C-alpha cells in the first residue's frame, strides 16, 4: 500500500481542562477526498486544528508527505502545503475581498493566481472591492475557499463548508468543491450535511467522542444505511 499524503496516528489532543481527541487514526491519500462526519462537539474541529498546528497535540503523529507536522507552528505547516477553510469561515471582515485573497497567495508554478481564482469564482471578482463583512454567508465561504486555493496547497482541510448557508448557497459551494475534486484535489472534508459529504467524498470516517469509530468508502456507506443511523442518528440517507 502506498503511503498516504496525510497520515494521522493515535493522535491525542485537547484543551487545558479537557482531553478531546483520544487516539485518532485517519489517512488521506493523494487525490482523495475523505469526509469526516460526527455530531456537534465530538472533536472534528479539534482534529482539523491539530493537523493545522492551531491546537498542539499531546501525543501521536501527524505525517504529511512523509514528514512529521506535530509540534510545528501553523505558518510552517501552511508553507509545507496544507490549507484550511475554517469553520465559521473566518474572513477578515475589515479587509477587502482582494486583500483577503492576496494575503493567502503563495505562488507556485502552474498553480492558482488571482486571475484563475476569479475565473473559477466570478462572484469574488464582482465583489473584489467590498469588505469581508459586506459579503453574504455564501460569498464568504467562496472567499474562504478562494483563499485556500491561492495558498496552492497540496491538501485542503474543509471544516463544515456548508454550515449555516441557505440551500442554494450550499449547492453552489458543493459544486465548487466538486469541480476541484475533478482536478484531483486532496482534501479532508468535515461535514454534518450527509448529502453533501456523500456527494463529494471518496471515503467516509465517522467520529464519536474523540475517536474514529467507523470508516468505509462512500459506496460501502451508502449500501449500509444502518451505519449512518447508528452513528449519526440521522434518518434515511
Amino acid at each position, binding site marked *: 500500500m502506498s503511503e498516504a499524503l496525510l497520515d494521522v496516528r493515535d493522535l491525542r489532543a485537547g484543551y487545558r481542562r479537557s482531553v478531546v481527541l483520544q487516539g485518532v487514526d485517519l489517512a488521506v491519500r493523494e487525490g482523495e477526498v475523505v469526509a469526516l462526519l460526527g455530531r456537534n462537539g465530538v472533536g472534528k474541529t479539534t482534529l482539523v486544528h491539530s493537523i493545522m*498546528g*492551531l491546537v498542539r497535540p499531546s501525543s501521536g503523529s501527524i505525517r504529511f508527505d512523509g514528514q512529521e507536522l506535530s509540534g510545528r507552528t501553523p505558518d510552517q505547516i501552511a508553507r509545507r502545503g496544507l490549507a484550511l477553510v475554517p469553520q465559521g469561515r473566518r474572513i477578515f471582515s*475589515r479587509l477587502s475581498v482582494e486583500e483577503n485573497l492576496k494575503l493567502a497567495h503563495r505562488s507556485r508554478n502552474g498553480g492558482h493566481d488571482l486571475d484563475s481564482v476569479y475565473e473559477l469564482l466570478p462572484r469574488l471578482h464582482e465583489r473584489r472591492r467590498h469588505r469581508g463583512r459586506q459579503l453574504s454567508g455564501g460569498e464568504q465561504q467562496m472567499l474562504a475557499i478562494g483563499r485556500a486555493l491561492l*495558498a496552492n496547497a497540496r491538501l485542503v482541510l474543509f471544516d463544515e463548508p456548508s454550515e449555516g448557508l441557505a440551500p442554494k448557497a450550499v449547492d453552489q459551494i458543493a459544486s465548487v468543491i466538486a469541480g476541484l475534486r475533478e482536478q484531483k484535489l486532496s482534501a479532508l472534508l468535515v461535514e454534518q450535511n450527509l448529502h453533501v459529504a456523500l456527494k463529494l467524498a471518496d471515503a467516509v470516517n465517522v467520529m464519536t467522542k474523540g475517536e474514529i469509530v467507523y470508516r468505509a468508502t462512500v459506496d460501502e456507506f451508502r449500501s449500509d444505511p444502518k451505519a449512518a443511523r447508528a452513528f449519526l442518528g440521522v434518518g434515511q440517507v
Partner: protein
Amino acid sequence: MTFAAVGAALPGLLNEHLVSILNGLAVGMLLFTMAVGLSLIFGLMDVLNLAHGAIFLLGGYVAFQVIVGEGQSWLAGLAVAVGFGAVAGLALGGILRPIRHRGHLDQALLTLGLAFVLSDLATIFWGSDFQTIPSPVFLQRSVEVLGQFYPAYRLAVMGVGFALAVVVYLVVERTQVGAVLRAAVEDRAMVSALGINVGRVMLAVLALGTALASFGGVIGAPILSLSPGVDAEVLILALIVIVIGGLGSIPGALVGAIVIGQVQSLGTALVPQVAPFALFGAMVIVLAVRPEGIFGSR
C-alpha cells in the same frame, strides 16, 4: 449665542490665544508619536506597553548624549535614538515572549516593572536636572503666523507629526504589509494558518512603535526638556489619547492627540482653575457618548 456671535468671537479667540492653540498642536503631535505605537501594539498583541513613556524619555536622552554630549549632528542623534527605540522594541518582544499566554495584567505589570527600571537607569546616567537639546540651527528662528511670531521649530514638529500620521495611515490601510497587520489584529490564528509568521509581524510592530516613541522623545526634547517624570506624564497623556480616539485606530490616535493637546494648552489658558480636571473631563465626556472612543469599533 447665535452663529454670527460665535463667528465674531472666533477671530478674537484665535488672536488672543493663537500661541496656546499652536502650542497645543505641537504637544498633540508629540503625543501622537507615542499614542500611535501604543495603539498599534495593543491592537495587535493585546499588550498595553507601559514602558512606552520610558522609551520616549530614553530616546530623548540618547539623542541628547549624541548631540550635546558628543557634539554630533542633529540627524545623527535622531538616527541613533530611533535605532535605540527599535532595538528596545525587539528586546521587549523577547521579554514578553515567555508570558505571551498569560493575561493582560501580567503583561502590563511586566512592562510597568520595565518602565521603572528604565526610568531609574535614565536618572543614574543623566541625573534629575532638566536637560534639553537645542533645536537644529536652521530652525532657530521665528516665523510669522497670522500676524504673530512663533518658533519655527514647533511648526516643524507639527508638520513632521502630521506627515507621520499620514504615512502610517497609508502604510496600514493601503499596503500589503498593512493588510497583514489589519488581518492579524482581527484573527491572529487565521493569519498564521495562511502561512504568515505572526510572531515576526508582532516584533516588527513592537519595534516600529517603540522607534516612534523614541523619535517623539527626540523631537520633543527641545520643547518639553528631559527630566525624570516626563516619562510617566507622556505615558498617561498618551493613554488618555488612545482611550479617547479609540484603541487600535490611527485616525483616532491623531484626533485624540489633537484634542488632548488643546485641552492641555488652550484649556489651561482659557480656564486655568479647571485645567487639572479638564483632561479627565474630556475623557469622561467622550466615553459617556462613545464608550469605544471617537474612532473605535465595536
